[in-house]
């Protein structure tokens, strides 16, 4: 991970604070207005001050509204208008596939009237909370589950399940790369990644910044349900890769694609299979046995196949 490339998204002061820190495997950088700057590694959490890691809240650096203004200008490459749609979803993916999540004052339109559920989110203003999730490319991390994903000639429909932060996307990316580059086992292969949040391939200006293999096409920033249909019609994929299934449209598209001769490798949030069964659309996909294998990530490098 090139920390310099990440630091350029932060304000001058925060860049200096993080630049003084020597921590490997940073997974998240948390910035909250008026609150201490925090770095997470997945296993540990560190408070950061102007001279590096500190032990007390009083010594840590607290972000200001000016820091946020500067960060937003840098993250949006001076083009906030271009990220309007992403802002509605509460995140922006920057070069390298790193996802920046926002919290602040959510703006809704009045079309929903008094009905809170029907209100549509049109943007976020007064951003005061940022979670900078650092994408990692761990080549070979999917080796342990390769046997559950495919046999000698067939690629299964696979669902990878884990709570946030345990590496679903990293595993999904490595599986994609392995299958795509395996000319011996799969001589006639084409993979299509429906990368709605630009996290799998980390596309910047349409070009993947992560290695997703030589026979992989990427539909970057495309909604999953529409992307799967588009890919089926136009890219004739043998395998489709989708991250973070959840909505009705996503599940319907997966069901359709799986019954169209295309293997699906997808991921979803959840602690275990029982939790997934409680979700209305995802539960139906599992009970309909659309997925031949379900792999639950129990911890870093710990997998359970069902």
């Amino acid at each position, binding site marked *: 991970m090139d920390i310099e490339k990440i630091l*350029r*998204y932060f304000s*001058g002061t925060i860049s200096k604070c993080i630049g003084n820190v020597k921590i490997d495997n940073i997974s998240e950088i948390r910035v909250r207005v008026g609150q201490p700057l925090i770095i997470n590694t997945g296993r540990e959490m560190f408070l950061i001050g102007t001279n590096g890691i500190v032990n007390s809240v009083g010594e840590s650096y607290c972000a200001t509204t000016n820091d946020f203004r500067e960060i937003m*200008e*840098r993250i*949006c*490459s*001076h*083009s*906030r*208008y*271009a990220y*309007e749609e992403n*802002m509605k979803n509460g995140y922006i993916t920057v070069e390298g596939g790193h996802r920046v999540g926002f919290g602040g004052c959510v703006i809704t339109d009045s079309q929903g009237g008094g009905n809170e559920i029907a209100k549509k989110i049109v*943007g976020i203003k007064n951003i005061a909370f940022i979670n900078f999730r650092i994408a990692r490319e761990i080549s070979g991390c999917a080796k342990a589950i390769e046997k559950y994903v495919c046999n000698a000639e067939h690629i299964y429909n696979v669902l990878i399940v884990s709570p946030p932060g345990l590496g679903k996307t990293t595993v999904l990316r490595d599986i994609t790369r392995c299958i795509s580059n395996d000319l011996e086992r799969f001589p006639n292969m084409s993979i299509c990644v429906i990368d709605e949040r630009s996290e799998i391939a980390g596309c910047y*200006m349409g070009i993947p910044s992560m290695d997703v293999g030589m026979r992989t096409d990427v539909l970057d920033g495309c909604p999953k349900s529409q992307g799967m249909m588009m890919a089926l019609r136009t890219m004739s994929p043998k395998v489709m890769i989708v991250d973070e299934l959840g909505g009705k449209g996503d599940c319907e598209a997966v069901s359709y694609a799986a019954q169209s001769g295309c293997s699906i490798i997808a991921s979803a949030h959840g602690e275990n299979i029982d939790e997934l069964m409680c979700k209305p659309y995802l539960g139906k996909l599992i009970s309909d046995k659309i997925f031949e294998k379900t792999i639950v990530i129990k911890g870093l490098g710990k997998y359970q196949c069902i």
Partner: protein
Amino acid sequence: MYLKIIGMICIIAGTTSLGIKLSQGYKERLKLLIEYKRILNMLDSEIQFNNSLLGESMLNISKNTTGVLGDLLMETGNTLMNDNCISFNKLWSELVDKYLSDSSLVGDDLKNIKELGSDMGSMNKNMQRKFIILNIEKLEMRIQDARGKFMANGKLCKTLGVLMGIMICIMLA
């Protein structure tokens, strides 16, 4: 005698070219402002239809823009694409000074062009387009002023240049 005639021709040619140069200044100013208006319209289209980043838009427009404005957009676009740490307002202001301060544009024109940097890139799409349209409207007033001055003074400068030369020649003769 021949020397006198050659001298008179030189004086008239000199004052005439001075008049033409002054007239060209008015014409050049009008041309630059109209070109800048075209750039703003293209920027609006880039935002509306391509959803391009500001740096990307500047580079795209620079390909279809010649002269000093093309160079200005090219350097702005390249800097924005390679260095996201710089403030657009500061960069735009510096580059406008670098490329346009020696041009025929007057102080108010430069102020108008620099105004683009103040809020560009910090608004949502709808507001951003309104901001560009507001800039175009303000620019339209500058264009009217430049056109008026060109019509009134452009021809006058050329005529005065010739007449001044003739007058000097008569006085010397």
